[in-house]
């Protein structure tokens, strides 16, 4: 069991001693029980930090933001950023390190073990509370306890936990500078890829029926991409939201951007966007599930990434974010890679 005070003390201490220039963690938001990202630079604010099952956000995203912001400001401040990272988030940091996005010494990983639990899926929770609005959530053994106006409500973790946490194989941040909580790896409540396998049990026609509706719903608000620490490209090849124009950018470069898809959020374009994203995350996605959580129209985006993750694991023996010096999935190969599909 993690005592939040330990995290607060560490954060305060690091800031006070100048061991970190910022601590990125979670604090209580202003809209009910949900936690939100907190960016703490003043030791006095360290007591704002919280840790509970609503700490969804993969905060490694903000290491990317920080780097981009500093590049824009042409600032180069000293000292690392300390970041609170769950198992999946820490693996994202490892992938970012693999991809040389920043240096190891630039980040101080305050690992938090999910201790066999995980985060709440709001979509699962809402119907179970019959309209009651919780103001707080906590882990307790195999249950989650929600505080509502009517009192405490205890729900089995299995029922309200996010799929990604139910299936999590590595809820412990292996890569860390400091870690809070015990390593309870192996306590996942569902087999890995269980949701994926349930979906895959359907035939191709059923899968298409489901996906075509999902693709139709997508409005390309790009929340999936924006919330993803791996989607750090300055310009997305599929659909740009920023075109990296530098002093050296030529008129030709501006004129010759490839329009892989149209701006229209139609099915075909949404497919190309979402499928490309899945391809580009293959071997890089650490299954933090933020894309799926952020999606306002419930497109099961995580399943696409999960599919790639499972292929990589089963066919290529690949685990994303396993080690900083590890290989990347699509830039390497093994002699034993499957080739039966090739004629």
């Amino acid at each position: 069991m993690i005592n939040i005070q330990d995290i607060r003390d560490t954060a305060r201490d690091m800031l006070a001693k100048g061991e970190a220039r910022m601590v990125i963690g979670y604090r209580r938001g202003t809209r009910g029980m949900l936690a939100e990202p907190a960016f703490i630079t003043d030791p006095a604010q360290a007591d704002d930090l919280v840790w509970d099952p609503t700490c969804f956000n993969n905060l490694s995203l903000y290491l990317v933001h920080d780097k981009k912001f500093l590049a824009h400001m042409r600032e180069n401040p000293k000292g690392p950023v300390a970041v609170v990272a769950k198992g999946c988030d820490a693996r994202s940091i490892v992938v970012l390190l693999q991809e040389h996005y920043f240096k190891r010494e630039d980040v101080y990983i305050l690992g938090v073990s999910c201790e066999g639990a995980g985060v709440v899926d709001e979509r699962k929770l809402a119907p179970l509370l019959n309209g009651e609005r919780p103001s707080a959530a906590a882990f307790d053994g195999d249950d989650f306890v929600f505080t509502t106006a009517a009192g405490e409500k205890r729900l089995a973790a299995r029922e309200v936990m996010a799929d990604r946490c139910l299936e999590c194989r590595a809820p412990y941040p292996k890569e860390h500078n400091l870690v809070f909580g015990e390593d309870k790896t192996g306590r996942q409540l569902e087999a890995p890829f269980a949701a994926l396998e349930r979906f895959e049990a359907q035939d191709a026609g059923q899968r298409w029926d489901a996906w075509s509706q999902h693709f139709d719903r997508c409005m390309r608000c790009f929340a999936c991409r924006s919330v993803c620490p791996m989607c750090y490209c300055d310009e997305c090849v599929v659909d740009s939201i920023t075109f990296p124009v530098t002093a050296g950018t030529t008129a030709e470069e501006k004129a010759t951007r490839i329009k892989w898809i149209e701006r229209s959020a139609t099915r075909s374009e949404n497919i190309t966007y979402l499928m490309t994203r899945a391809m580009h995350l293959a071997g890089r996605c650490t299954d933090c599930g933020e894309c799926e959580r952020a999606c306002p129209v419930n497109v099961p985006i995580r399943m696409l990434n999960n599919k790639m993750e499972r292929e990589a694991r089963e066919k290529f023996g690949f685990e994303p974010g396993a080690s900083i010096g590890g290989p990347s999935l699509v830039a390497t190969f093994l002699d034993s890679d499957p080739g039966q599909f090739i004629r």
Partner: protein
Amino acid sequence: MSEPQADFEPKIVAFLCKWCSSAGSDLAGVSRIQYPANATPITIPCTGAVSPMYILSAFNKGADGVLVSGCHIGDCHYIEGNYLARRKMHLTMELLKFIGLEPNRFRMSWVSAAEGAKFAQVVTEFVDDVRKLGPQDKLRKVVSQ
């Protein structure tokens, strides 16, 4: 699988590596081995240069089938390109299958420079398979009014 549609002519994009499959298709030409005209070749340096984007984009732009063909494993002119391609195309194939696209719409083959007959056979079979599936309207851009 539905019955072959007699009047349906599939549109197929064929990414051929310059060293093996494109040369193999040249050999099919020199040998005058006939095969259907549905596959339009795009010659690329190596299958390793085929980005999954190309496959997705071809389907997006209305391809009924996409073929990627290159050197046999071990024969890559660039040593490793086809190994990289094999992995990437495997993932692409799996992803396309996952969302319910008919697996027969995407094909990869190894055709060496000496395998003119195999090239013709690969294209013939692929065109037949795609023809049976009918037009690809899942990923295709629909120009609506």
